[in-house]
């Protein structure tokens, strides 16, 4: 399991390639991998968003991400899980969050990945502040629901 919070941009696909290279124990063992990549949109609630500032509670954010992943590993049959979360200044199209799980079976991979994202969205102490086109800033007040 790896949980990482960083101000550095997440280059998601090369990062996943390196991670799998560094974990040869996954090769041949997992039948399914599910990846969620959350990206910054350049609009929100009908307004253009130019930039975003992502604040977190250092210490508690890491603790909660690790705890959430552990709950997923206790509930489903996972071989490994990876969660990367960006903080600091973020530009449109940047990757904000990445959740990856590896499992023998696809049903577990889908369920665990979605569980981690929903728990992260409701429990992990991160907050988004948007800078609009006119330079005004506003805090995002709540996350959108995770159901269709």
């Amino acid at each position, binding site marked *: 399991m790896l949980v990482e919070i960083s101000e550095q941009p997440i280059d998601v696909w090369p990062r996943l390639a390196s991670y799998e290279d560094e974990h040869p124990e996954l090769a041949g063992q997992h039948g399914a991998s599910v990846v969620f990549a959350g990206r910054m949109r350049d609009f929100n609630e009908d307004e253009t968003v130019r930039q975003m500032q992502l604040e977190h509670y250092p210490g508690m954010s890491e603790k909660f991400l690790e705890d959430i992943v552990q709950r997923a590993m206790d509930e489903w049959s996972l071989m490994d899980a990876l969660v990367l979360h960006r903080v600091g200044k973020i530009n449109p199209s940047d990757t*904000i969050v990445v959740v990856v799980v590896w499992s023998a079976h696809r049903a577990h991979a889908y369920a665990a990945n979605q569980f981690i*994202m929903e728990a992260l969205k409701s429990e992990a*102490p*991160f907050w988004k502040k948007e800078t609009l086109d006119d330079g005004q800033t506003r*805090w995002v007040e*709540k*996350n959108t629901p995770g159901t269709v």
Partner: protein
Amino acid sequence: MSIEVKFFASLRERVGKPSDSIDANGVTTVLEVWQQTVGEPSLDPHILAAVNMEYVSADHAVCDGDEVAFFPPVTGG
């Protein structure tokens, strides 16, 4: 004998400080920490509170050395 208090995001801006430190003497609950650091009698139920990085309710007990944090609903991911 002190309790460290932290504020985050929009609440940090509203309160006007990222952190505070209060004397643990005579402070027994999270609500009392809020009252003493922010000067408001009640804690908006939308505001989340954590003691030592675990979510708690306003009536949760606090003691010397605790880290208490207040923040708005989370919006990461």
